[in-house]
């Protein structure tokens, strides 16, 4: 099965969730070609015929039910599959145009920095500063440059005050930020994160996504984030991929994917509440209301509908701001 919506990068620049971002570049920095993978001990493919194009500069959200293959996809995009986790690998993953099978894991890591779901397994140092500089030393960054890059990475994530702290004394949320800082210190072109906010409160979750958005917009870093918090994904990502049963069943601009709201729900993926609300309104009163994905958009849509502009379907998201943040 092919994705129901496989817009090109140029198309992804329209109808985005956050609206004000610049259009991503059109070249794919990561691409999979009929990627399938079955774990050595597995009986069915964890990834099944995945065709995914990630444009350089895009902000991609990946969502799906448990066991859909999201973390396996992250492992394949980061080179962990096939270099570390073994199994039956079919098709290809191209990172910056080169087949991941023909690059070393280290080389792939220079392009793609990854924060995995189990950050405890990723941590190697006892002190925050040491954790952040570990990758820099391994990449052969000149010694004189390391302190500055550590400082920059800690500042970016907002944890400069934790620099000398022992990792064992940190909360789960603080550890997630340390892992993100360690990845950012490598100055990757692609940042790949697997459920980076799972242990964070709403304010800290928003802070992480704000940081990702800033990195994406200001430094052009391509962001791929696997996340169960659909409202955050819809507020910050430009494109959304939905996985189910090892397949990429939807991929495209956030709003386009959410048009498949009923199919998503059958797959165990809920839409933002305001999307469900406007979807139900549209179903009841017919065309004339846009499908909204944020509170801001929904407020605007309702006000337009009640001011007699219900026929205006050219919904403009430019400049609108999501409100999934503490008031």
């Amino acid at each position: 099965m092919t994705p129901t919506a496989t817009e090109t990068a140029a198309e992804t620049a329209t109808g985005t969730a956050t609206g004000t971002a610049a259009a991503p570049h059109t070249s794919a920095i990561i691409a999979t070609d009929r990627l399938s993978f079955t774990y050595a001990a597995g009986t069915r493919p964890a990834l099944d015929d995945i065709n995914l194009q990630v444009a350089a500069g895009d902000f991609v959200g990946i969502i799906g039910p448990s066991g859909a293959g999201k973390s396996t996809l992250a492992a394949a995009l980061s080179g962990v599959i096939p270099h570390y986790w073994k199994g039956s690998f079919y098709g290809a993953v191209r990172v910056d145009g080169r087949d991941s099978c023909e690059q070393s894991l280290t080389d792939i890591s220079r392009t793609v920095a990854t924060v995995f779901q189990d950050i405890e397994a990723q941590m190697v140092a006892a002190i925050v500063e040491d954790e952040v500089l570990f990758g820099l030393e391994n990449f052969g960054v000149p010694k004189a440059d390391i302190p500055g890059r550590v400082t920059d990475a800690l500042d970016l994530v907002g944890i400069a005050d934790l620099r000398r702290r022992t990792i064992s004394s940190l909360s789960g949320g603080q550890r997630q930020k340390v892992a993100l800082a360690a990845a950012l210190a490598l100055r990757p072109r692609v940042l790949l994160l697997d459920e980076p906010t799972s242990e964070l409160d709403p304010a800290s979750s928003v802070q992480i996504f704000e940081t990702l958005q800033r990195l994406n917009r200001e430094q052009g870093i391509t962001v791929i984030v696997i996340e169960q918090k659909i409202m955050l994904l819809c507020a910050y990502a430009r494109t959304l991929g939905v996985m189910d049963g090892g397949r990429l069943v939807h991929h495209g601009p956030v709003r386009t994917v959410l048009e498949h709201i009923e199919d998503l729900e059958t797959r165990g993926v809920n839409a933002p509440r305001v999307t469900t609300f406007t979807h139900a309104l549209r179903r009841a009163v017919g065309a004339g209301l846009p499908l909204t994905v944020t509170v801001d958009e929904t407020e605007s849509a309702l006000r337009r509908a009640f001011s007699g502009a219900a026929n205006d379907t050219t919904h403009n998201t430019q400049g609108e701001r999501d409100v999934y943040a503490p008031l």
Partner: protein
Amino acid sequence: MSMLRFDRVGYSYGDGIAVHDLSFHIAAGEFTALVGSNGAGKTTVTKLMNGLLKPQSGTVYLDGVATASARTSRMARAAGGGVGMLFQNPDHQISKNTVLDEIAFSLSFGSMSRAEQRERAAAIADEFGFRADAEPFALSRGERQLLALASVLVAEPAVLILDEPTCGLDWRECMLVMDKVRARNQAGTTVVMVCHDMEVVGDFCRRMLVMDEGRLLADGTPDELFRRADLFGQAHIAPPQMVQLALRFADGDDALSRAMAPTADIQTALNAVLPLLSARTVQSGTCGPVVQGGVT
């Protein structure tokens, strides 16, 4: 009589005060959410509730018994079932090699016969859709969370404490967990749930305790507290989307603003808005008759 009562409770881990002068009580049968930012003291409160931590000042009462001086065996019998606790990470409480052994484990400490332990465990495994001989660590993260919950519920606790029970779950698993919890609450179990997801709080809880820096900021129903933007800013949490939406219309005097009552419930909002919207669209000729549909 209160099922749980905190009377000027304080607790410190040494490097900072986790809970400060905390007083509240929870009646039997309530479904209470404990919310606040990371580090607010929520998990400490749950550990004080079940006696894992003893208060350093003040008193915690469970079914009228002060936890600081009660024996573990007395705590286990409190209110006829004691306290069951679901930790945030199920892997911190799963210890057996099969689903059946894992669920039966909590029953093995009492006087129940082994046959009855296995029978009750098998019944719960069946209710949750588990194969009895499945290996716990071969299950998905969400399934392990459900297994941990089943292992707690099998003991039929009088008080059920849940620390982020939906963390890391997909939506369907989240609803499955919460439906199980709601069913127990409707059968009389007192539920206290730490939760960051205000959509879940709005859907399932009837009371909210909002904490910040070890103190109780507010105590009320979700509907009351979701209207208080000042509170959410202070506690670093966000109200449900539908409440946020309704609050945008709170100061208006038009028909739409008057209809948009702050509620997390989509169907309630639809019922309020649809008649107004359909009247407008029919007037302007943009659509046919309204078909009132439920929310899927």
